[in-house]
């Protein structure tokens, strides 16, 4: 299981990568994809949608079930990784490369964990 140190994590198993200037990339963690199994569908938000920390902004479906993806921050969707729509398995293959959205105008964050804290959290 991989926990890159440059990222921050949520207890709902999302990661956020600070790009500076109130923008960040958001995705799901290696642990999340492994628990979900084969991802076969993603319901993406649209550019310009407002997202709110700790609220669902997207859902992913595995063969087995659907899961909400919670936003780690409050802001506005600047860009959507639309390739995922056709190839949701990228989330399984490269969870930290397969970002879901780029968020701008970030005004607030939810509770974020460091890599070390998140690793300890999932190993509980």
């Amino acid at each position, binding site marked *: 299981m991989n926990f890159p140190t440059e990222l921050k994590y949520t207890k709902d198993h999302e990661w956020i990568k600070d790009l500076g200037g109130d923008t960040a990339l958001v995705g799901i963690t290696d642990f999340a994809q492994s628990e979900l*199994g*084969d991802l*076969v*569908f993603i*319901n993406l938000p649209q550019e310009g949608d407002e997202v709110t920390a700790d609220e669902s902004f997207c*859902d992913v*479906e*595995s*063969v*087995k*079930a*659907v899961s909400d993806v919670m936003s780690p921050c409050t802001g506005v969707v600047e860009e959507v990784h639309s390739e995922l*729509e056709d190839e949701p*398995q990228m989330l*399984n293959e490269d969870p930290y490369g397969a970002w879901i959205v780029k968020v701008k105008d970030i005004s607030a964050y939810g509770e974020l964990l460091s890599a070390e804290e998140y690793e300890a959290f999932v190993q509980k």
Partner: protein
Amino acid sequence: MPDLKRTQLYDVHVAAGATMVDFGGWEMPIEYPTKIVAEHLYTRHACSLFDVSHMGRILVEGPEMVPFLQHVLSSNVMALDLNQAQYAIIPNENGGAVDDAYLYRFEEDRYLLVVNAANTDKDLVHLNEQIKNYDAKMTVITGDWAAIAVQGPKAKEILQVLSGGEAVTEPMKNALNTLQFEGRTVRVAKTGYTGEPIGYEVYIESAEAAWLWNRLIELGAKPAGLGARDTCRLEACLPLYGHEMGDDPEGKEIPVFAVPLAKFAVSFSEQKGDFIGREPLAKQYEAFKRIQNRDFSDLTELPRKVMPITLLDKGVMRAGMPVYKGDKLIGYTTSGTMVPYYRHEGEGLSTVILEETAKRSIGLAIVDSDTLEDDEVQVDVRGKRLKAVIPPYHMRVDAPPFARPILYRPDEEAAAPASGDRGPKALELIGRAIENHVWRQEKCVNLIPSEMSPSRAVRLLCASDPSFRYAEHKKVKSFYDADVFYYQGTEFIDEVEQLLVEEMKAFMGCAEVETRCVSGQMSNTCVFSALMDWKNRLNRKQDPKRLGYIMNNHIIKGGHLSAQPMGALHDYIAIDPVTERHALVNFPVLKDNIYKIDVEETKKAIDQYRPEFIIFGKSMVLHKEPVAAIRKYVDDMGLQTTIMYDMAHVLGLIGDYFQKPFQEGAEIVTGSTHKTFFGPQRGIVGVNYHKGELKYGLWETIETRAFPGSVSNHHLGTQLGLLMAAYEMNQFKDEYQKAVVSNAKSFAKSLKAAGLDVAGDPANDYTETHQVIVSVGYGTGPDVAMRLERNNIICNYQATPEEEGFTASGALRMGVNEMTRFGFGPAEFDKLAQIMADCILRGKEVKEDIEALRAGYTEMKYCFTEEQVASALNELAKKSGI
């Protein structure tokens, strides 16, 4: 996970890194590190293993086991022969399902009932309550025998390694067998829950379970978990208890007939007596029939039914989502997910399965019974109404060895009818016909055993004047059975027909011949119709009784459509009220040569079924049929059985070098006149009934079933051609028949020597007919036959008696008859065998070699070639403007 049960293979799953979950009280693998999508796809293109040892296995035995099972199951247990399995519902008193189950009969005196793991305890409570009234007992053997499902197109070849090459089961679905896998006893069923056309479930003693699992993996199978099992069964539209059976998402009990499979699983045979749920099920069945006929006036017994559903918008359906048609709630999804599949390209038999994969969002839904295929509906996917449609199915399995995903596509609009000047089209048609004629007649080596090029004389006569005429005629008793013709201008054809009858009587060696049937299959239909009419002749005041039991060659063992219920027997064969199946019994075949009837086993079957009609003959024919032995047995038994030999393929071989059917005791011989015989395409019936015998009446009935029963116009041109063919045959049969049989034997030996796998008995040089059968590898028959066609070798691919159907065929069927007629002898067939081995085994392009070989043999043999005949034919061609 405390308190969960573990199967015999638990350690194997954990060692393989499986994710284990609670499934019906069992700790089971949901997926392996390969994950569901890859496991699903591997099942569809190769072979997966599923541990199904958690399912409840109950042995039922005792003097009253059958009445007990008839009472607690929906199916007709009397229809279950030894080594067969059947799907059944365990119904409750309300016409709902306690569970669904599979009943296996591996042994004469015991049945194995397999039920859902999560329902086993509940089922046992229900069944134990019932068994009290019967002298029978149940033993749970779930812990004693493990069960491994081996599913996918490679399953058969993998299991055959373990069986040492022995056929694992008969190729039909639900066939069972008990055999040895490397010294261990296994029970194998051709059943499964993935929808795979090539799928087996193997039962083995618990101690050997891990050995078998690991051995199967060494041989190329991969483990798959319950996740892939669920996506596979969903794609195959197989119901799952708790989803499509049991209670629906509104909490109402789902009636058994809401599931389409119920039609096959429920029997109302008298044999079943007052079984549990009979009354409500019978009401459901009446409603089911009305609904199928689109009478939706009363849906009370069956308000909703389970149908497949495909999402057209993007998204994923899950069980329990509301389904709407317009604004009306019509039901709920019962199962749904995103299922992967391999893309394919090309059409028909040329369809190629690609490596590229895709996914589709499919499910099952329980919807109002007036919902129709192709109805557009919407599914409420977490608050969003998404567009969906009701497809006929998600997958088909009638082109084995692969299960074929069927993607929803609306019917394309038909192309507008062509318009404009037909002149150029006419010219093009002629040009193409010339091209085709030259290719088939001069450049190709034709090995199709059911074809024959006729001589020039036959062809010219076929095209001359009678071919445009009518000559209906019928024997009239008032005129001492003289034939009375309905039209004038028919004197010539009348004479031709009488001459033809005499020539054919002489050739076939029988008392009477009917020549008016225009195909072999029509000849059979005539005979079957006449037999049924004859059977009912003394009582015309009620519906006529059909024929049964009938004994024939199974289609998969070389029998032809023209003697099968799906073919010419369709309207004439009875249903056995006990088994509710066609009153048909197939000739048993020898274990070590599946192309030969097993006479001793056949006698036992005759004892058991006392058939009223026996039909010898087949289209994949290497050996003589045991007519004399069976005739003697039937006579010794004092049976009134009618014996017929359908000699479609071997009509031209009747005589010293093959068989004399009437001398051996056949009463009726049918045939087609254009396979080993020299004629144009027609049929023939000969009988050995003489005036004054009781069965002469059957002969007269056959005549009336020919006319007016089957033909009004009996194609007078080809009848004239057939007379010439009969002259040729009676003149040249001795040399021709001898050459055909020796060429076939010689060709078979050359093919064998060239490294090909030739079927049949080596003691007979593999064949006693014109046919040679070569195995080219399971499922590769169509590809090899197409490659040969590209190289101007025309033969047909054929499923062997061990294969599931034509798309799975692994054999080529060839006949030497036509090329023998063009003058091929052992040397030419040996050369041909070498060329074919180069093409089949080494992928060599051999078109030029074939054209060179064929070029020396374009002149027809075994026909009249004298100068006088040739010039008369020129005159005929000129006068008739051909």
